[in-house]
């Protein structure tokens, strides 16, 4: 059984079909959706994450680890998402952003412990009390990834997360993200218009539009 299954997923906007997908994504593997902007590729991530706008018509099932999550609300799907921007919550410290993600079942000192481990892993020790606004682009991207991973997601959704980084940083962040996805054995869906992203992801590629 694949970790993430799209069973006849079809998304349309104003009667126009944007995508029609049948795909299995194994744990630790990446499915890449390629397409120009306006092709509706991000709508697949919104449908997977449970936050597709009411203007879209969508059908078909999404199975996560064998469970049909199509009807579940977004917050019960545990699909971590990274957007083009790191979108760290600006009113919280770096540590505050991370501890917000730690599941509520984990209690007490263990919560802080997880945050400290994540920061150490991202090579950002002593950053817990920092204002996210003072971080560099690469640092923000790493904190954003750590925040997603701390929530113990069942799948990882990437919405062109490297497109706004400058080229030197892009390779670095990209390999960090894919290495982590593999290490955590997450099925990953990547939406991009950059061939290099697809190559780095190294999995199945579906081209739209």
């Amino acid at each position: 059984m694949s970790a993430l299954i799209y069973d006849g997923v079809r998304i349309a906007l104003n009667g126009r079909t944007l995508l029609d997908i049948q795909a299995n994504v194994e744990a630790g593997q990446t499915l890449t959706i390629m397409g120009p902007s306006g092709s509706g590729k991000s709508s697949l991530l919104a449908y997977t994450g449970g936050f597709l706008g009411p203007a879209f018509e969508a059908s078909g099932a999404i199975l996560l680890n064998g469970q049909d999550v199509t009807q579940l609300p977004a917050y019960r799907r545990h699909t971590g998402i990274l957007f083009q921007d790191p979108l760290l919550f600006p009113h919280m410290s770096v540590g505050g952003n991370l501890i917000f993600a730690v599941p509520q079942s984990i209690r007490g000192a263990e919560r802080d412990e997880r945050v400290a481990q994540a920061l150490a892993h991202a090579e950002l020790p002593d950053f817990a009390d920092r204002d996210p606004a003072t971080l560099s682009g690469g640092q923000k991207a790493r904190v954003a990834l750590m925040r997603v991973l701390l929530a113990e997601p069942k799948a990882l959704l990437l919405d062109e997360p490297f497109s706004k980084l400058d080229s030197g940083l892009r390779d670095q962040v990209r390999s960090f993200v894919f290495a982590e996805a593999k290490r955590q054995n997450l099925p990953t869906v990547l939406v991009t218009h950059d061939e290099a992203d697809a190559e780095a992801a190294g999995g199945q590629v579906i081209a739209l539009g």
Partner: protein
Amino acid sequence: MLRLAPALAIGILLGPVAFGILATLIPAFGYLPSLGAFEVSTRYFAEVWATPGIVQSALLSLSTGLVTTAVALLVVFLFVAGWHGTPAFLRMQHFLSPLLSVPHAAAAFGLAFLIAPSGQIMRLLSPWATGSTRPPDLLILQDPLGLSMMAGLIVKEIPFLLLVTLAALPQASVARSGQIAGALGYGRMSGFLFTSWPAIYRQIRLAVFAVIAYATSVVDVAIILGPSTPSTLAVRLTQWMNDPDLALRLTASAGALVQLGLTLLAIALWIAAEWIGRLVRLSLERRGKRLARDQWLRGTALAATVLAGLAVFAGLAILAIWSVAGFWSFPDALPRNFTLDTWSRALPSIGRPLSITITTALAAVFAATALALACLELEARTGRTGGSRALWFVYLPLIVPQVSFVFGLQLFFLNIGLDATWLALAFVHLVFVLPYVFLSLSDPWRAWDQRYASIAYGLGATPNRTFWRVRLPMLLKPALAASAVGFAVSIGQYLPTVLIGAGRLPTITTEAVALASGGDRRVIGVYAFLQMVLPFIGFALATMIPAFLFRNRRDMGTAA
């Protein structure tokens, strides 16, 4: 709970208006059992008609509404057309924004202290220019045509209409259209008129109607600056409503309906004028009129806007000076000495009005903000907005004249034994505070990057946790700013407070207006000063609280 919020909000906006009009309608036709009146007739309308000078009062109300709105909108249009996108525009925006929070009555007193025959302008001109050491014998205040009353309303409506227009600007891509029109040889102002104004006007139209409704039925400004022989229709109705002779209430009810008809007539005339204006614009467009030499008009527009702002600021400063003035004879520009005597004399009687003012405002603002947040949060979760129909509901209490439905509410509260209670007062304030809170909050709330919520949901945070931990803290600044607007609106309410409180729930505003006829400038200065200082404290707190909470969060200064 959240799902009930829109219905509750609509109930609060629509219910009192509908119910209030109904409760005015029935006694207007002679049926008011509590006064022993059961006979259904139209004689009370005949009584209104037979009142001496009533036609003159009605015409005064009508002309005040139309002239005020036309002049204020014209100034705002010319200013925005001539100056949008310039540094001067931005400076004026910062200069005029605080004026929105100044209660109408305080601004009117300020203007009165400025332009009266013995006012500050005459003092500054005397004796060197006027050649006189005595106040001239001129009827400037309370002139029979209502010109000073119109001026008092115009200077207050200009900041309002300007801020409403500013909110509509981003959707109209004004800069780009202006460049294209400019490249075709159109003037800055004509380019704006032809390309951007129609879309902007569509968006601010309800606000313009609200100004018409307000100016045709205003009571406090009319008492302070308006003529008394005769007064405007709304002022006379208010006198009847508060008259010890209870039989006059039936006549007042009929009059309240006449006022409603009058305001609707003013709006109908305005719509006819809109239609003519549109034809003129289309004709100019078709003939390709470039109207490129608009420098003089731009200058005039800027001068008019600055003058309107300065008049209010100068008036407020004069009020403050009067409140601490010692001996001050004409034509001295400043008092000979300053003293806190007036304050210490007024202080013992300020306590109760002040606490009623603040507790009523806080209760109304808290309820309004909670309701607006609930409606907007539900909208964000479901992705469904109320559309343009919802906007009509929001504006309804602002477009129906207060005097036409609050009196009915007073009769209603009387019947259920809640008359002149704090609860009834806070509820009626809520009706007028809610629209402003909702309108102030909805734009920043909707502009918030929804991806933050998607991220929080993806992290497993429930919608409630996302609201309390992410969305509300990130939008704390606009939420508090909207509350401050609501607070200022509540402080400024005159008529609803007088009618619902039935004289037993004095606020700073009702006390200030009550002092108008006495003419003791020092005491008026104290109350009017408090009137403007309370909203200012609200805005200061709304700015300082988020600044303090997020002092170490750089992006919170700019975000939303």
